[in-house]
């Protein structure tokens, strides 16, 4: 009996002693994984699966990445995108649509916002516990698996497989509140090489260039963004545990001044868009469904695990976008109008 107690105590001491060390190790690994693409070049193939409540999207693309910030993705599937590609040059994105013979150019200054990345990593470690899982092999590389467990709910929200040598994320899975898989990204045919010709990343000529969005670096001073909006904006009174306002930005969208507030818990995000011109969201390209809350008629669409909820209120128009469950999004939306 005494021996048994001693063994249990020793085991507990071992666990207690090792647990913080393993957690620190996992957190360090996460940090390395975030910055890995800046120093590691590679070519490979990626399969993505985005699973919604009523719709699932899958894609396969060949990827060529030359560190620090040149990336090309050639779509092999779905069939409607075959031959299309997306080139990323730092904050510039070129979507090459070979079917319509056009290149859409977007700018996104947020891509290189190191301060925001550090802030958000801090948010992640505040709300999530990194737990190591048994090593696995992905795309021929030995990977260390890390689970991100929500400290408030105890649910595993994400699981990532990180190459033990390069720290590149080779597989990633996200889970809904009930544990269901909502998205998966997985590498195959991976090869690490920096010998990727520059021509691969050249924007092709002979296409019509169309200017897309120009996104500024969002402000982490959300109040400043709200003031810039020029109208009395609203914000939700309810957010899931761990979520806080992260950034705000104001954009003229087809001449309509639009406020965009981003809320996050470090992994999951919610975007609240609002305009004061009562300009609604055009859902005609999607399968829109109706829902009613707090005496408001709203509509929603699902894109894989992402839901967009749209409604109007007293001259304002709102669009709430996020990968939370529809029930949770409606609860947030209700707190905006109540």
């Amino acid at each position, binding site marked *: 009996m005494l021996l048994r107690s001693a063994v249990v105590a020793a085991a507990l001491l071992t666990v207690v002693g090792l647990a913080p060390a393993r957690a620190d190790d996992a957190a360090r690994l996460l940090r390395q994984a*975030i910055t890995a693409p800046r120093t590691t070049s590679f070519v490979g193939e*990626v399969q993505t699966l985005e699973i919604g409540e009523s719709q699932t999207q899958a894609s396969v693309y060949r990827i060529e990445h030359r560190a620090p910030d040149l990336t090309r993705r050639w779509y092999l599937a779905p069939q409607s*995108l075959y031959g299309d590609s*997306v080139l990323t040059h730092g904050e510039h*994105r070129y*979507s090459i*649509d070979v079917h319509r013979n056009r290149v*859409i150019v*977007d700018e*996104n200054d947020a*891509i290189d*916002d190191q*301060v*925001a990345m*550090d*802030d*958000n*990593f*801090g*948010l992640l470690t505040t709300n999530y516990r990194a737990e190591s899982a048994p090593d696995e092999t992905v795309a021929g590389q030995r990977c260390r698996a890390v689970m991100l467990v929500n400290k408030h709910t105890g649910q595993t929200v994400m699981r*990532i497989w990180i190459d033990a040598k390069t720290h590149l*994320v080779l597989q990633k899975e996200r889970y809904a509140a009930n544990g269901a898989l909502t*998205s998966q*990204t997985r590498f195959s045919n991976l090869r690490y090489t920096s010998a990727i010709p520059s021509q691969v990343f050249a924007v092709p000529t002979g296409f019509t260039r169309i200017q*897309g*969005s*120009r*996104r*500024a670096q*969002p*402000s*982490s*001073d959300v109040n*400043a*963004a709200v003031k*810039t909006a020029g109208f009395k904006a609203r914000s939700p009174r309810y957010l899931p545990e761990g979520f*806080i306002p992260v*950034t705000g*930005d*104001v*954009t*003229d*969208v*087809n*001449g*309509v001044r639009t406020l*965009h507030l981003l809320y996050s818990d470090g*992994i999951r*995000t919610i*975007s609240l868009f609002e305009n004061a011109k009562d*300009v609604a*969201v*055009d*859902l005609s*390209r999607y399968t829109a469904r109706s829902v009613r809350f707090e005496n408001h008629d709203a509509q929603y669409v699902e*894109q894989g695990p*992402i839901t*967009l909820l749209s409604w109007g209120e007293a001259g304002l128009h709102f*669009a709430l976008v*996020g990968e939370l469950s529809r029930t949770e999004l409606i609860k947030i939306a209700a707190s905006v109008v109540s």
Partner: protein
Amino acid sequence: MNQHISQDRLTDYLHHALAPEDDAAVYAHLQACPECAVAMRAETALTEALQRQAAAEERDLPSGVTATIWARVDELSAAPGFADRLRAWLRPAILVPAAAILVLGLFFAPQVFRHAPVSIDAAYYLDDHAAVNGTIPFGDASETIPASLTSTSDPVNASAVAVDPVTMTADAAP
């Protein structure tokens, strides 16, 4: 004209309301037709009687009112003419600012008065949400298929509006 002249036609003739050829025909008939000439004289007498009655009932305006009206008429006659008024409006102190306002109005009018769109494509919101996820750990926006590749319409024209300087730094991270 062999028939006698009707009463209405006589009245019109008396008030010079007939066309010249009709007027000439009535005159010729009156010269040749004693009956119509009598009727004409009766009509003339009646008209004159009515005019005398009307004149007898007229009241003269008070002399002060008449004087005031004539004084105003004289004043207007002495006022500057159109050319004078135009020259006054075209002096530089008025003309230059007016021209500037006109030019600015022509420049900004299309922006001020252009119609707001009825709606904004949902793809814009989905894309923008994915874009800001770029700074969220493992929220790689590149995994999302850009809506511009799946849409047949032109992308939404969106440009950022400058927000005041950031007041929170990494040290004050949540």
